[in-house]
């Protein structure tokens, strides 16, 4: 089942009808050219520019001069201290680790909440399923910044949430804004649909008879979940995790608006370097470090998924 899905649909026909191979190959090359160009210009060129800037020399008042300079990367770990000597400065590593932690927690919470939701939707009758999937995507129709402002009202002083709790005896004038919990709530809310959709897609394809078989072979609910359902839906979970984790690493709005901006995340650190810090090469170096982190994580996930496919 998954074999077919992972092959280029053009290739089998090339093998079946070698006489038409030339035309097909040409189509495959020239037909894809626009998307290659788009990918090249919209994706690769900016990354190459950022990579080049990360090795450039910073300008006195922002901007940069082309050149080869490792100062941007050195600064991630070593900086001049208050005494004027070069010393180990863990602060940027702390920011990077905090960002990874926030993105990881967001992914985990999204996963925990998305699996039951996706499972529920997948087990509904066809017409209801369509409506529910549509409802999951509904928030995307409204600008993200508006939805965050809505959350600021919900959790803020005199907002609906504190009011509701007052009904149950909580003291008046409470505010749930400007802390890590508020950040996390907004993050999970924002990225949840990106997890639900791929997980739903893989649960929907799940063969119900396999679950029955597991029960027939005396597997209890836990074993069925762990040995049958989770392995079969792993590709969807992996896709969802990537879709949530990667953008969560670059989140700026939620930590600043909801969390109060009291602790920097990688996104705001990079922003500071291109703005007030006037150190573009350093900003670019942090961005490249983030990119390398993400790429490593993605490669690891992809390799694990590939190995799983081989063993099953």
């Amino acid at each position, binding site marked *: 089942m998954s074999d077919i899905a992972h092959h280029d649909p053009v290739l089998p026909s090339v093998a079946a009808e070698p006489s038409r191979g030339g035309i097909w190959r040409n189509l495959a090359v020239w037909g894809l050219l626009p998307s290659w160009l788009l990918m090249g210009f919209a994706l690769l060129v900016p990354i190459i520019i950022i990579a080049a800037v990360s090795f450039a020399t910073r300008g006195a*008042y*922002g901007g940069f001069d082309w050149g080869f300079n490792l100062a941007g990367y050195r600064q991630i770990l070593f900086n001049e201290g208050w005494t004027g000597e070069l010393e180990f400065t863990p*602060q940027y590593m702390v920011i990077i680790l905090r960002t990874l932690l926030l993105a990881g927690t967001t992914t985990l919470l999204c996963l925990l909440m998305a699996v039951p939701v996706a499972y529920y939707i997948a087990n509904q009758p066809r017409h209801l399923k369509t409506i529910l999937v549509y409802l999951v995507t509904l928030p995307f129709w409204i600008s993200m910044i508006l939805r965050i402002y809505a959350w600021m009202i919900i959790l*803020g002083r005199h907002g609906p949430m504190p009011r509701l709790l007052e009904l149950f005896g909580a003291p008046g004038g409470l505010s749930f804004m400007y802390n890590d919990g508020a950040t996390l709530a907004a993050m999970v809310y924002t990225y949840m649909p990106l997890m639900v959709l791929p997980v739903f897609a893989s649960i929907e394809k799940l063969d119900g008879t396999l679950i029955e078989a597991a029960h027939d072979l005396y597997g209890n609910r836990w074993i069925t979940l762990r040995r049958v359902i989770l392995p079969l839906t792993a590709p969807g979970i992996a896709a969802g995790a990537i879709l949530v984790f990667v953008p969560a690493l670059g989140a700026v709005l939620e930590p600043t*608006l909801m969390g109060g901006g009291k602790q920097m995340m990688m996104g*705001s650190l990079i922003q*500071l370097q291109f703005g*007030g*810090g006037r150190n573009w090469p350093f900003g670019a170096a942090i961005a490249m470090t983030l990119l390398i982190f993400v790429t490593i994580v993605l490669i690891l996930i992809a390799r694990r998924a590939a190995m799983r496919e081989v063993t099953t």
Partner: protein
Amino acid sequence: MTKYLVATALGLCLASTAQAEGKLNLYVWSESISPDLIEKFSEEHDVDVSVDGYTSNEDLLTKLQAGASGYDISTPSQHFLRIMIDEGLIEDYDANKLEAYENIDERWRNQWWDETQEYSIPIAYGTAGFAVNTESYDGPLDSLEYFFEPGEELTGKIAMLSYPDEVIGAAQLYLGVPFCSENPDEMKKVLDLLMAQKPDVAVYSSDNIDSRLGSGEVAAHFWWDGEELKARTNGAPLAYAMPKEGLVGWIDSMVIPKGAPNRDNAIEFIEFMSTPENATEQMNFYAHSSPMKLIQEDVVYTKEKAPELYPEVPVEFSRTCSPQAQDLVTRVWTQLLQ
């Protein structure tokens, strides 16, 4: 098919000739220019005006440094204007030969940010300091001490801007450290002060200040005089602190970014905004002081109605820091929020 194409092409040509003669792209402080004036200019000069906004000088500088912004007019503050002149990011448009120059109030002409006044015509000036919600805080307002080293009443209810620019300036005023200090020991003191204040700070944000302070989500907010004045005039329970240590001053000027596509229209617009009549209308809209000659009897924000705009405490204008001094500022800010 061809017929349709020709018709469409013709239609497009006609449509564009029917449109305004020229264009003008403004990149200015968010909601800083009177929409009525923009409309009036657009009609009088047959020009299509588009307006984009920014909320920090840093955003503007970064955009201009990235090149080819396509904007015709911007309004940087004095310390950034100086950088833009030195870095060749804005046009010399012989501002001192314009009628607008004659309309500048004498005390604002040829200052250090543009000695020859060839690059800029000022449009607004004011201060940055602390505003309070008078329903949540009724304590004294005559010192920065109450905000940087707050007592019970303001604990956990202070908000600062998300950029170091004016915040560090205010901390320096309080500590008596000179602006743009290159002395690490002095700047370490600034960091220590801000670190000690941090537990009492609810949020570092430059957005959505009026609703955050107006709703009582926080009780004190670092803000600008005119914004506080406008919100107070609209009925919000606010007050602007006049600390004895002083306020951080700024003055914004109209400049033309290098390579502006509609330079002539930009100059027309600068002349237009600088007539006493229009400058008065602009001040009545923006609620910040005007550095231009005004029609005094039409000024809405007089000293009686708007004491915010007429501070009697010292006002210290932000300066253009050397790269070393700026690095210290960034270091303070990064360590504060690390």
